[in-house]
């Protein structure tokens, strides 16, 4: 029993990371209807920036703040420069642009920092908190706390600020948003900035667990896709719940399903994506599209 709970705790820790990247995907999807395949690479790039700061001797938490601020600006710039020109273009065009962005950011990181792996400092102390035989790593607790904090801040932003209300209005009906005086273009850029920031958090959280290298986020992105699909691509709460569920499912499958083991457990997200698309395409928390004339 303790062993089982232990697996769940591990799963939640991993799941929180998927959740934060899924949250970034969902933010952009809600505002622009775009699935941003480059989300993971943007997060990886931000993580390198954080690494560069710490390597230059900047204390970790200050490096974090600087990186998040740069990610925000970077996300807005990407929207203005790369996405804006294809706004309103057919979906396939936009998808291909984000795939292009994926390749570009990946190559740029390799060019700047090489493909050699780097150690990324862990902001949380080593060791674990123990209760009834259960070990909860401080790192796992830290990750859960950070993702919880990010969610809480986003909730406050969207539900209790004027800017957040404006952003929800743009997501709901861009044309009417314009008519009430909202600058829709800037709001979309703001959405990208926010998503880039949230994604950067996931990169910085995952880097100490893996090694920092340009392909670090590839796997995480797949899990984040599974999480967003499971939770519903238009639901931030769903993205987080989906991330946690995917994390736990992956860990349990690796530990208890004999033939899965640690090699095949990367198949779990695929199974989840397929299952959801077949059984409940809008996801657990998503809204099925029902148009009212």
């Amino acid at each position: 029993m303790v062993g089982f709970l232990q697996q769940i705790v591990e799963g939640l820790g991993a799941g929180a990371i998927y959740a934060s990247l899924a949250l970034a995907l969902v933010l952009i999807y809600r505002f622009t209807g775009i699935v941003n395949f480059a989300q993971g690479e943007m997060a990886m790039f931000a993580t390198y920036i954080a690494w560069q700061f710490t390597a230059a001797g900047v204390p970790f938490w200050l490096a974090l703040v600087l990186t998040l601020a740069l990610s925000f600006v970077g996300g807005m710039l990407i929207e203005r420069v790369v996405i804006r020109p294809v706004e309103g273009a057919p979906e396939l065009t936009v998808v291909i642009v984000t795939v292009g962005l994926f390749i570009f950011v990946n190559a740029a990181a390799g060019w700047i920092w090489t493909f050699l792996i780097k150690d990324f400092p862990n902001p949380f102390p080593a060791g674990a908190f123990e209760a009834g035989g259960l070990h909860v790593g401080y790192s796992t607790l830290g990750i859960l706390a950070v993702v919880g904090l990010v969610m809480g801040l986003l909730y406050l932003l969207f539900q209790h600020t004027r800017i957040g209300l404006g952003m929800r209005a743009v997501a709901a009906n861009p044309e009417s948003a314009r008519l009430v005086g909202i600058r829709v273009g800037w709001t979309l850029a703001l959405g990208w900035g926010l998503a880039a920031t949230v994604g950067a958090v996931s990169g910085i959280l995952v880097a100490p667990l893996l090694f920092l290298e340009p392909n670090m986020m590839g796997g995480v992105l797949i899990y984040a896709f599974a999480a967003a699909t499971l939770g519903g691509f238009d639901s931030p709460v769903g993205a987080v719940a989906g991330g946690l569920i995917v994390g736990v499912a992956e860990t349990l499958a690796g530990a208890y399903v004999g033939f899965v083991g640690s090699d095949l457990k990367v198949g779990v997200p695929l199974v989840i994506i397929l299952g959801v698309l077949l059984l409940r395409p809008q996801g657990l928390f998503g809204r099925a599209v029902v148009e009212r004339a």
Partner: protein
Amino acid sequence: MSAFLEVTDLRAGYGDARVLHGVGLAVPQGEICAILGPNGAGKTTLLRALSGMVRVRGGIRLDGTDLAGRPPDALARLGVAHVPEGRGTFVPLSVEENLRLGAFIRRSRAEINADLERIYTYFPVLRKRLKQAAGSLSGGEQQMLAIGRALMLRPRLLLLDEPSLGLAPLVTQELFRIVRAINEEERTTVVVVEQNAHIALGIAQQAHVLETGRIVLSGTAEQIRADEQVAQSYLGYRV
């Protein structure tokens, strides 16, 4: 002396398709102007031109300020409120959020709260539905919400596109009575597009008939009502 809203030789369309071929209007401050005409005449396009949602050539002046070529959010800031055909509510957002969005560009909380109260006196049902999603309202309630949201801008020019669409006759009458009351109490200038010519002429001072992108007939509401051709085409009876 020029009118409050002055539209001269307005041309607009979608891509290569020209829809308006030189429309002219002049509406004095505080008056209601009705736009009538058959389906596809370009009535919606005219309102969209006035709120900056389609590209235009020609002149649009509001109280002397040139509006032509400005984007919709800039026009909202200049006091143009547009209730689009099909209402354009923020469906997943609550009634209260929809109304507050109407005042997005305004800063004073106290004034906004006072205006909310004012909207509830015009449309008491909205107060009972404050926390409900706009999409869950009935058609008539959504139309009231859309007009309420437009009023939250404190508009100088209110554009209404077929407010009667899909509403029961009694609800339509009530809605037009309220539009008239708003116009009288706030001195808001209104341009209203309506299929229901009879009811629109009942509240308007002046009216224009639009056909295939041109104004084919203009006059006071009484003149238009008395016009035999209009009576046949749009009022459904012979004089």
